[in-house]
């Protein structure tokens, strides 16, 4: 009797010991995909807002011809970086405040397709050259006024000559925030100033020098403010195009 118990015990130890050798048989994702979405004519990154602006769309076609898209949000300077992807064949495109890379006509036919089919492995870099809907540029640097406000001067121009993407100007915004992440998703509305246009009223402002002054009286002092100009048209999801971020130290 005792012998049988021993046999069972030994058998169980053997079974336990030999099973569960491999906790997981698939390596953790370690592939990096990075790159930037840049303005085709200036070569600079397309400024955007993080989270609700530019995003990179991945369709992994290694297994399935109709995959669920996977998205990577870009940083606000237009670069992106994801270090935890699986290797695989992907159709990669980008969505954001620029002329769409993939365009479909009324009949469902794809008329423009600038997406890239890439074998993503190790460290892969994929860049996109695009035409922004608007190109927003600083004129000089923002000025801290004696009354405690800040004056920003800028202009914006059409980034594309394609009339299909030259919708009416919707609004322009001087975004102010107390940290460098500043844009429509993150700003202090007590100081940020906006001009909103009705219909086609804003189209005359294209290319002109525009000055916006922070609102709400003097800015509280002894800190830095981060400023960015956003402008957008009525096209599609109405993404903002931005300038880069400028810092103004308020004494």
């Amino acid at each position: 009797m005792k012998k049988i118990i021993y046999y069972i015990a030994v058998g169980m130890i053997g079974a336990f010991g030999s099973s569960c050798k491999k906790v997981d048989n698939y390596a953790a994702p370690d592939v990096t995909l990075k790159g930037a979405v840049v303005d085709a004519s200036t070569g600079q990154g397309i400024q955007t807002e993080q989270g609700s602006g530019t995003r990179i769309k991945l369709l992994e076609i290694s297994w399935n011809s109709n995959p669920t898209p996977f998205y990577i949000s870009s940083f606000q300077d237009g670069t992106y970086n994801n270090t935890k992807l699986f290797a695989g064949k992907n159709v990669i495109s980008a969505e954001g405040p620029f002329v769409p890379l993939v365009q479909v006509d009324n009949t469902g036919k794809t008329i423009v397709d600038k997406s890239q089919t890439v074998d993503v492995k190790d460290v892969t870099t994929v860049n996109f050259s695009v035409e922004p809907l608007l190109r927003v540029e600083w004129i000089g640097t923002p000025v801290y006024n004696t009354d405690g406000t800040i004056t920003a001067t800028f202009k914006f121009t059409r980034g594309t000559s394609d009339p299909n993407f030259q919708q009416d100007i919707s609004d322009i915004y001087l975004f102010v925030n107390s940290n460098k992440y500043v844009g429509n998703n993150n700003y202090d509305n007590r100081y940020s100033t906006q001009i909103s246009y009705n219909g086609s009223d804003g189209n005359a402002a294209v290319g002109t020098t525009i000055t916006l002054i922070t609102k709400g009286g003097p800015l509280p002092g002894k800190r830095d403010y981060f400023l960015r100009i956003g402008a957008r048209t009525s096209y599609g999801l109405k993404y903002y195009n931005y300038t880069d971020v400028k810092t103004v130290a308020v004494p």
Partner: protein
Amino acid sequence: MKKYTYIIFAVLLCWVSACKKLNTPPPSIVNDDDIFTNSAGIQAYMARMYAELPIEDFRYSPARGLNFFWIISPFSAITGEALSKDQNNAMQENLTFDSRPTTWSLCYTLIRDANYFAETLPKYASNFTPAQISAWLGEARFLRAATYFALVKRYGGVPIVDKVLQYPQQSIDELKIPRSSEEKVYDFISADLDYAYTNLGESNQVGRANKYVAAGFKSRAMLYAGSIAKYNSINLTDGSGNRLCGIPAAKAVTYFKAAYDAAVLLDGKFSLYKKTWAAGDKQAQYLNYVNLFFDDSSPENVFVRQYHYPESVHGYDAYNVPRQLMGANGYSSEVNPTLDFVEMFDGIPKNADGTIKTQTGGKYDLYTNTMDLFANAEPRLRATVILPGDVFKSVSIEIRRGIYTGSSAGGISPLLPAGSTAHYPTDNIVQSANASQTPYKLPNGTTMNPAGLGGYFTGDGTCAVSGFSIRKNLVPDKPTSEVLENRSDQTWIELRYAEVLLNRAEAAYELNAAGQNDKSYMQDAFTVINQIRDRAGATLLTSPADLSNVNVVRTERKKELGFENKTWWDMRRWRTADKEQNGAIYRTLMPFYSANDNKYFFDARLDERNSRYTFDVRWYYEQIPQGEIQKSQNLIQNPGY
């Protein structure tokens, strides 16, 4: 040997007598035969479908979805109609709350029920008259159309399922129905409602559709379709050329015409509620407008959802009653109309830019009572909003921000610079943090609480945070002991004739703007708007030329249908929501008592809580629940999600 014979005989006997009926339907489950053979069964089937009809009624909030009791984040607090302590920003409908089914799946469940009804009823046709059959089939189509409308206004084009899907008879691949174009869905709704109009009778039980309900819904749905054709700028087209989001602009006139024609069908069948209305009598007009929401025999009610305590209830009174009349659950004042809403109405002193006038020459105007500012207010405004100091349930609702103790020599200057969201300076102002107040001794020796009984309390959001409280739909004579959650049972008016008239006016305006002149559309819009204004006690338009732009029609709609859970959908279909709510902060009106004057003054200001509203452009088409796409991979997600 004989033994075997007996055994065989016994076995045979057992077999033959047993198994007679193995195929008996379980008696505890209701079957088609129980439902479709008598009109009581049909009524029960209908009752459930109507109960599940996806309308945004007393039990809807965007945070928690359809048909849920707890409405502390009111719908009107995302549209700019109201401020609420529990809803402080713009949002779209939450996909899921507490693992409740999504709106998407609730709608498709009901669509299946309607399809099942329409397919099964004809098999039992011998039990009923042909008139009954056709009316019920019409009713099923109405329910299906109303459900598709709930889907299309949220998601754009959705899969059209017009028959009962069978599994496993149909393969999974067959059941993965792709989305139809938005245009096709609206056309499908239109066809169903036409069928319902043709087949339904002139009248039906209260809370059920008749042919005019179908026509009224059609005017609503077609107006939405026309607006999207005209104002939408989002495009999503699938590989087969179906435009899932957006409708070709060329279709706008067709849809506006359909909306107009459907609205005209109700002409003469319904009328605006004017039972206790009297020309020139503001008090009578005000009471008439209050009563409109509580008179079951109102000729204005087109389609309603009834409630009845204790089996079918909601908590509208408990959540929204002024703080002063709070019930035992401790809820109150969830809906506090904004000053922006109030300023749309007539009869209040206004500045040149349309904002309320509370100052003269840089000094506050003084009033003996808070209601003096609203002495000539439009009756409809008083019936919609409890103004500070107005009477509700026989008590004066006290709304006061605080007591100003500073000198009043030469008048009182503005407490804050214009456009400020800062807190008030505390040096000359006494205020209360909550409802347990320390009375302040006035210079004349009497005492007064710093804040009114209805607020404003600086540390307790359960009060009139905007300086106003909601009146519309609050039962005017409900005892406070019954102001409890799940204790209200007033009727929800989903479609009233005023909306149909406004649909007609808007469609007429748009048709005229599109150059259509087969009818005198502007004259008709003018007549209709004036009917609404006349009943409301508002200033009438003097001529059709007063309809100078579309905002005249839209503002009238916002005023008339305020707090009836329609405005958000309107802002979406007009595609104005992202303009209206682009970092918007809404305005409030704060009444102060000046201790040295023994008089009130009002400060119009931006919401002190700095609640900021930004409508995300993506929300014009809501996100399709990810779980649905996993089940049916042919569904294409809406842009931006």
